[in-house]
């Protein structure tokens, strides 16, 4: 059973309007557990929309989306929230850490709303930060961390709930080349050592080169699906 199965998914914005915009024009896609895939495409190609649907942040207009065998395309908001909490970890381009909240508390956030005991929460958050090379930075707030460190905190937050799927939207978009490489190495490690499925959206070929599968999107359609050796 694939981890992700999309069947003829479309996404039309403003379907009721005179000039609707078709972001996805019928995408079918399967991703197995443990894959490391990159979605590439120019601006407006539909790659971010595809990522949002994969992350249950948006729902398709038509078509079906199965995650771990469960049909999730018609679920209610709270049901989608539960899936995002348990099955998906997000890493965003802008880090999206909670301001005025230190690193360990940011990492605790997904567990904060799921009845995890405080001691367990703190232990797991500190461990996730350690794995991201941020031991000793637990008490620092986002404004006291570099961009690379903030993204590491965001990755720690994405993995802390042990979700099988990590979605990264332009995770290196705000970072310099050296830091970008470090962050990508972290993704490779998480994929190889922990077996997490990683899907990242990028328009940079050297970032996509870290993955073992590159899915190219243009005009709302998958135009190429290349399997390759990752770095």
């Amino acid at each position, binding site marked *: 059973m694939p981890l992700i199965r999309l069947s003829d998914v479309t996404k039309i914005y403003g379907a009721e309007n005179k000039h609707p915009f078709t972001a996805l024009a019928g995408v079918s896609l399967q991703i197995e557990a443990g894959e490391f895939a990159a979605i590439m495409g120019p601006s407006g190609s539909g790659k971010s929309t595809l990522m949002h649907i994969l992350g249950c*942040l948006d729902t398709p207009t038509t078509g079906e989306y199965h995650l771990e065998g469960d049909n999730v395309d018609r679920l209610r908001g709270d049901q989608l929230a539960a*899936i*995002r909490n348990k099955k998906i970890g997000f890493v965003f381009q802008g880090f999206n850490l909670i301001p005025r909240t230190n690193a360990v508390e940011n990492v605790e956030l997904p567990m904060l*709303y799921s009845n995890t005991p405080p001691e367990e929460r703190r232990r797991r958050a500190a461990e996730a930060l350690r794995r991201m090379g941020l031991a000793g930075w637990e008490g620092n707030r986002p404004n006291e961390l570099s961009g690379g460190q903030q993204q590491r905190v965001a990755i720690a937050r994405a993995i802390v709930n042990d979700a099988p799927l990590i979605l990264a939207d332009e995770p290196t978009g705000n970072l310099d080349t050296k830091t970008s490489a470090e962050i990508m190495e972290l993704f490779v490690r998480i994929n190889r050592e922990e077996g997490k499925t990683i899907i990242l959206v990028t328009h940079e070929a050297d970032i996509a080169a870290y993955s073992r599968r590159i899915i190219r999107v243009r005009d709302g359609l998958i135009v190429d699906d290349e399997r390759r050796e990752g770095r």
Partner: protein
Amino acid sequence: MKIIPIALRNISRKRVRSAITIGSMAFAGFIMLFFAALGQGMLYTMEQNAVGVYLGDIQIHAPGYRSDPDLYTRVPDPAALVDKLEKAGFHAAPRLYGFGLAAASGNSSGIWMRGVDLIREPKVTLLDRQVMEGAWLSADKPKEVVIGKKLAYTLGVKPGGEIVVVSQAADGAMANDIYHVRGILKSVGDAVDQGGFLMVDAEFRRLMGVAEGTHEIAVARVDKDRILAEAADTVASLAPGMEVKTWRDLQPVLAKMIDVMDISLLFMLFIAYSAVGMVILNATLMNVFERIREFGVMKAIGVTPPQVFSLIMAEAVLEAVIANVLALGAGIPVVRYFEVHGIDLSNFSSGASLAGLALDPVWYCKLNTKALTMPVWFMFAVVLAAVIYPAMKAALLKPLDAMHHQ
């Protein structure tokens, strides 16, 4: 999810914003408490003027006396009745009344004489504390009287001044004597102010030839929380055949006016509190809008809409709890101060009366249950009402829209 610790954590996380919100709520709460206490104080003073200074809670008369206040229509054996009332949890003071003519310094005026039981009257009313000039009655000085403020002005007398009194005694003979002014009352009500002539009860009996009975027994509840109507029923059962009236029956206009003022006070409080509600709504809305991206992230990582809604509500309620504690902490000592010292408006108004009873130009606060709880409950109600919209808005935000909010 344990919502309270998370809400507390969020409040402490954004200290400046929370301090501003809680501070404005606490200030509003303080004002509301003071305003409510002042309003309650005004009503209390009015009621006190009616009940505590003049009427008593309940009055007992012989049938027909109120419609025709005749010297001969008296409550028989008042000592026995007073004794029964005191055993039943009341204070009671017998009073004697008669009419006459007073003259002094070439001036004259009709007077309303009142024989006062010097031991019992102070337990029922505060009349003995209303002396403006001179002193209260003394059993040792039966020829010294206390008179109303306007009567003193009409007769042109001051404490120590001489007054000649003429009346008709119970036996039909002429009653006349010379008295000296011992004290002048401050304004307590039109009837007392214009014609009040208070004397020791024994002297009244001697002057007017009234050996037995009394014209009125004023009754006060020892336990002020005892329901007035039930207390009146008890008094009526102890005084069969007598006419028993509560102060509300005796002064229906005043009673109605106090009821109306109580309601209008609520209305005024509602208007004031609504303004406060707008402050709270504004603070809460700003708080939510400032955190839209944060809510977007929370929702993206799996926080459900009801959890977001509950969290914002919990934060607002906790802020209201803290604000109420601060408001009460600061407000109670201030209200207590003005319970004792009052706000003196005598420069702006004096001698005003309502339904024949004087209005006190000094406004005192009164910290009763109503004044204390009304602002607290109202603040919670306003906070909950004010926060529903922003909480709903945050709960219904789409994670993507919220995260991309500028």
